[in-house]
C-alpha cells in the first residue's frame, strides 16, 4: 500500500509492531537499511552465481531478513552466533565487511576465511561469528558447547544458535537440545535457539517431514521453554529478541523461539522451486515480505518517505556494488595456502606436499 509522503527522515514518529516494545523511527530506519542491504547482497550473490563467479553451493536468505536482523539487534559484545549454511546475513550483521564476505564467495584470498570455506563457512570469530556450517544439524551441538563454555568462563554472554526447520529431524538436534536442557538446569547453558522455520527443508515441507509440526513444542521434550514469533514482522522479532536474550543472559538457561518465515528465493541457486510449492503460496508469502511490511510501516507512520527509502536502497546498492567489484578484482588465494591451517601450532604437519 503506497503511503502518502510523510514528514521526511527522522520524523520522530513511534511505530509499534505486534510486540510491546516501542521502537523509535530512527531505529526502524536503521533496521530497514540492514534488511535491504542483506537482500541486495543476496541478489548480487545470485547474479555472481549465474555468471559462474561463485562456485559450489549458494543459499540465500531472501524473505527471511527480519529474523537475523531482529535477533542480532540484541547481540552484545562477547556474545557468540552460530548458524548453518544460510549464513551471509549473520556475518554481515555482526559487522563483517561485505567486501570480504563477497570475496569469500568469489573464492579470493581476501575472503573472510581466505577462500577456504566459501558461502557455507563464514567465520568472523573476533566479532562473535562462530561460523556457518554445511552439515544440517551439525553445528547445534557445537553451539551448545559454546554456550556452556561462556558460562564455564563466568561471562555474562550468550550464544544465539540459529537452525532451520529441516535440522530438527536430525539426531544432532535432539542430542544437543537434551544436553542444553540438562546443563540449563544448573544455569550452565545460556543458549538461545532460534528456529528459522522457512517451511521447507530443501524441497520437502515441514508437514512432509514430521507428524508433529509444532516445532517449538519439540523443545518440551528437553525441558526447554519456547514460543513462536512472526518472523516476517521485524518489530515482533525485535520484541522477542530483546526479552529473550536478556532472559537467557540472566538465567543461564536455554530458550527456544520458532520464527515463522519463508524463503521466497529457491533453496539453492540451482533449485526449481515451483516443483514443490505453488505460485499461489509463494505469492501469499510475498505479500508478507518483511521488507515490504516494514516499508509500509515506515511510510504509514511517517518515519520515512519514499525518497528516503529510495536513498537507502541506493546506498545499499552502492555498498554491494563495491563489494562485488572488490571481490571481482581480488586475487585468488596464493597456492601456498593449500597447506596452511590444517593444523594449529608450530609443529604443523601437512603431510606430503
Amino acid at each position, binding site marked *: 500500500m503506497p503511503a502518502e509522503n510523510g514528514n521526511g527522515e527522522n520524523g520522530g514518529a513511534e511505530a509499534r509492531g505486534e510486540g510491546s516494545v516501542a521502537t523509535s523511527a530512527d531505529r526502524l530506519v536503521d533496521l530497514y537499511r540492514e534488511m535491504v542491504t542483506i537482500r541486495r547482497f543476496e541478489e548480487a550473490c545470485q547474479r555472481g552465481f549465474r555468471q559462474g563467479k561463485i562456485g559450489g553451493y549458494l543459499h540465500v536468505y531472501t524473505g527471511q531478513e527480519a529474523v537475523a536482523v531482529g535477533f542480532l539487534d540484541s547481540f552484545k559484545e562477547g556474545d*557468540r552466533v*552460530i548458524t548453518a549454511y544460510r549464513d551471509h546475513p549473520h556475518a554481515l550483521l555482526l559487522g563483517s565487511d561485505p567486501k570480504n564476505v563477497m570475496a569469500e564467495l568469489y573464492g579470493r584470498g581476501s*575472503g*573472510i*576465511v*581466505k*577462500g*577456504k*570455506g566459501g558461502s557455507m*563457512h563464514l*567465520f*568472523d*570469530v573476533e566479532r562473535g561469528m*562462530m*561460523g556457518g*556450517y554445511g*552439515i544440517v544439524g*551439525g*553445528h*547445534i*551441538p*557445537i*553451539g*551448545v*558447547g*559454546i*554456550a*556452556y*563454555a*561462556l558460562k*564455564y*568462563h563466568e561471562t555474562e554472554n550468550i550464544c544465539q544458535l540459529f537452525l532451520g526447520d529441516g535440522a530438527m529431524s536430525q*539426531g*544432532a538436534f*535432539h*542430542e*544437543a537440545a*537434551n*544436553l542444553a536442557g*540438562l546443563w540449563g538446569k544448573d544455569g550452565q547453558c545460556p543458549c538461545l535457539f532460534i528456529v528459522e522455520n522457512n517451511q521447507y527443508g530443501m524441497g520437502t515441507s515441514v508437514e512432509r517431514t514430521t507428524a508433529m509440526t509444532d516445532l517449538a513444542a519439540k523443545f518440551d521434550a528437553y525441558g526447554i521453554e519456547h514460543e513462536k514469533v512472526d518472523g516476517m514482522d521485524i518489530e515482533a522479532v525485535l520484541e522477542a529478541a530483546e526479552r529473550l536474550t536478556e532472559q537467557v543472559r540472566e538465567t543461564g538457561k536455554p530458550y527456544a523461539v520458532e520464527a515463522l518465515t519463508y524463503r521466497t528465493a529457491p533453496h539453492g541457486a540451482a533449485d526449481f522451486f515451483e516443483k514443490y510449492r505453488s505460485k499461489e503460496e509463494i505469492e501469499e508469502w510475498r505479500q508478507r515480505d518483511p521488507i515490504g511490511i516494514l516499508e509500509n510501516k515506515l511510510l504509514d507512520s511517517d518515519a520515512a518517505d519514499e525518497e528516503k527509502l529510495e536513498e537507502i536502497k541506493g546506498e545499499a546498492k552502492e555498498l554491494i556494488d563495491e563489494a562485488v567489484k572488490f571481490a571481482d578484482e581480488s586475487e585468488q588465494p596464493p597456492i601456498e595456502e593449500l597447506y*596452511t*591451517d*590444517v*593444523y*594449529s*601450532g608450530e*609443529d604443523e*604437519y601437512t*603431510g606430503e606436499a
Partner: protein
Amino acid sequence: MAETKTYREALREAMVQEMERDENVILMGEDIGVYGGTHLITDGLIDDWGPKRVMDTPISENGFTGAAVGMAMMGMRPIVEMMTWNFSFLAADQIIQHAAKLRYFSGGQVQIPLVIRGPNGGGVQLSAQHTHSLENFYGHFPGLKVVAPVTPNDVKGMMITAVRDPNPVIFLEAGALYGTKGEVEDGDNAVPFGKARIACEGDDVTLIAYGRQVNLCLRVADTLEEEDGVSAEVIDLRSIRPFDEDAIVASVEKTHRAVAVQEQWRWFGVASEVAAIIQDRAFDYLDAPVERVSGAEVPAPYARNLELAAFPSDKQVANAARRVLYMEEK
C-alpha cells in the same frame, strides 16, 4: 624417578596432572563420574574435581562430542571419553566433519584443542560391534592427530602431549592392556607425537606394529632369537598421524627386511602404508618383499578360538619374519 604402574593408573595420572595445571581441562563422557568409568580410568575423580570438571553425559556420542568441539573452540580443553571407540561412529560427523576441518574452513580462525580417548582394538571376546581397530580410519583424515600408545609410560606421556596439543587428538588406548604394568616416569614425561619407539633393537628383520601388537612382536622377537638365532628389531609406531617414516626407513636400511603387523583388516590398513613408505624410500635396501600380517577379513567373532584366529598370532608373525629371511616356516 620412575615407578611401576598400570596402564590405567598412568593414564589417569596424566589427566589429573593436566587438570591440576590448567583449569580449562575437563573430562566428559558416559558414566565417567559417579559410576567411575566403565574401565575405571576415571574412578574417584568426580570426588576430587566435582561434576564441572568430571562431567557425566547422556548416552549421546554425537551430541557431547560436538559440544566438546564447541568448548574447545572457546579455549576449553575437553578430554572426551568414548566408552569404547566402537561408539565413535555415532560421533563421526562431529569428529570428521567438524573437529578435523574447522580450522581449515575457518581460514585458521579457530583451533580445536580436543582429546577423544578410549579403548580400541579387540582381544576380550566382545564380538563384532564392540571390536574395531580404528587407527587407519581416523588416520585417513587430515586435521586429526592419531596416536596409539602401548606402554604405561607412553600412555601417560602421550596423554600429556595430547592435552597440550592445540589440535583434535584421537587417543586410541590398548583396551586389553589397562591392567598391564610398566615403569612410568614421575612428573612431566611428555612424549612427542610423530616419533616411533624402538621397542627392541635388532639387525636381521624389522617388525613394525602399534598398540597391543607391539607386545606380540616383542614375544616373537624372543622366539626368533631362541629358535632361529635371528635378531629382530621391533618398532612401536606410537603415532599414526603424524607418522614417523624416518624411523621405519632407518631400520629397514639396517635390516633389509620388514614385517608390518596390525590387528585391523588387511585392506587399506596401516601396514599397507608402511609397505608403501618402505618401497618409496628404502626400495634399494630391501632383500625381500615387505610382509603384512593382519586381522582376518571378517567381523570380529565371539568364541575364544574364533577370536584368536581372527587376530594376528605369534606364529603368523614369526613365520612372516622367516619368509622375508628366506628361512623355513615353522
